[in-house]
């Protein structure tokens, strides 16, 4: 899932300082599961902002609400009145949600309440770790199911580097060395021949290096006729 972190309260308050009526919109998808921008976090932020204002003698109206998935226009459309009825929207979704609102209502201001971080996995309660960077050309079937692009600090294709000590990464001694993990996994699977082979230069054109990516599924697209039948057309 997409893992995000709330921005510090001070930074959020400063962003919103010159606006009277603020709508704070959370999302029930990834950011709710990673405890950054779900219903509970929206409520907590709104009350924290109110308390802060009370202390400082400032007056602003805050209203908090949550949508199912902020990156999908249909769900955002349902709260259109709340968005357009305010001076500014603070999105408590990942950047995708914030940009969806921004693209739908370009004249209206939508600011980010979260810092969007990683494609990550919950390792234990309260701990998420990055395991993919979306390079667009998955190779984990050759690396024991472990992604070196995201899990190695140098994205090495032929690791480990010379800084791997006690199977930890030299950049962060708390983090396992991805290539030590790959070696161990391949050994366990009796597939060490894979690590003996040279993985040649990677074609990064499938990643963000190739420019902004748009994935199209022709078979899933609606025809003009079908689109007319849909309620939400933007």
């Amino acid at each position, binding site marked *: 899932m997409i893992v995000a972190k709330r921005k510090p309260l001070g930074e959020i308050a400063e962003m919103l300082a010159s606006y009277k009526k603020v709508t704070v919109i959370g999302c029930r998808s990834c950011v709710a599961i990673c405890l950054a921008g779900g219903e509970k976090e929206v409520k907590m932020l709104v009350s924290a902002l109110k308390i802060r204002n009370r202390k400082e003698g400032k007056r602003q109206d805050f209203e908090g609400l949550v949508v199912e998935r902020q990156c999908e226009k249909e769900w955002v459309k349902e709260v259109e009145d709340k968005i357009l009825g305010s001076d500014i929207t603070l999105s408590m979704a990942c950047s995708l949600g914030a940009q969806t609102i921004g693209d739908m209502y370009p004249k209206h201001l939508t600011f980010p309440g979260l810092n969007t971080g990683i494609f990550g996995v919950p390792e234990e309660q309260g701990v998420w770790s990055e395991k993919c960077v979306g390079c667009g050309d998955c190779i984990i079937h050759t690396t024991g199911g472990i992604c070196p692009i995201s899990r190695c*600090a*140098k*994205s*090495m*294709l*032929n*690791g*480990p*580097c*010379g*800084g*791997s*000590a*006690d*199977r*930890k990464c*030299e*950049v962060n*001694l708390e983090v396992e*060395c991805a290539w*030590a993990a790959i*070696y*161990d996994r391949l050994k366990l699977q009796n597939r060490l021949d894979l*690590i*003996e*082979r*040279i*993985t*040649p*230069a*990677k074609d*990064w054109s499938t990643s963000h290096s190739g420019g902004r990516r748009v994935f199209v599924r022709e078979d899933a697209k609606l025809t003009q006729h079908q689109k007319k039948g849909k309620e939400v057309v933007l």
Partner: protein
Amino acid sequence: MKAGSNLEKVLESGKFAVTAEIGPPQSANPEPLTHHAKMLKGCADAFNLTDNQTAVVRLSSIASAVIIMREGIEPVIQMTCRDRNRIALLSDLFGAAALGVRNVLCLTGDHQTFGNEKGCKNVFDFDSIVELQVFDNLRREGKQPGGEVIKDPPKVYLGCAENPFATPYEFRVSRLAKKIAAGTDFCQTQAIFDMDMFEKWMDEVRARGLDQKMHILAGVIPMKSAGAARYMKNKVPGMIVPNHIVDRMKSAKDQKEEGIKLCVEQIEHLKTVKGVHGVHIMAVAWEEMVPRIVQEAGLFPRPTID
């Protein structure tokens, strides 16, 4: 001859080679390089110019190489993958070769978080093995990874580094084999303090016949103090300094003198290890000691080969 460099001639003729390191300055002043070149001339077969080592911004490796070449000594440029994508790596390789550089050491590079520009964006388009493979294809066939075939490819002698002391240990010889398959001609190792462990690694290197396929130059670092020994033992990832070495440095009356003595003894020992074809002396910020170490280790004068 692949490149016709002095280092290549010494190694290919079967002589025991000596390389040493010169750290470029953190400034635009060429004087420290000229100073070191004059001081070190004749005491090694070629000199490595580090490429922003530990990610600290320094005068560039290629520019440094040209500066020391003016003093009549041969450079080995280090090229890391941290700061340059393949366009820049290939372009710099062409440029370096055009300026007369004949030895290139391919490295992945220290991560930028160790350096003095921690907020920078890294590149890592390649790793060191891919870099070797691409440079080797280029010098052999003039072929770039994108398919373009060029005229007048760079004639360079290619090297790599390897660390026998990084984990997983059992993969380290295989990784050297990968570098050989990628086209390396020589390998400078991480500094060796644990001789037993290094010899075990060499046993396996020889068992796989890898010492016959390229030249291993064993790395040494002369230590200035017991503090330096402790620092390398505890703070440098992938470096192993046994306790007896730290203790020996600690109990020495003159620690600097002991550091030199230890380094000379290490070289004497490494000369006897079968498959080791040279030493690489990394006298970090202590370059002035290199002539003495080479002299005392019985490696002076250096051979001249036509």
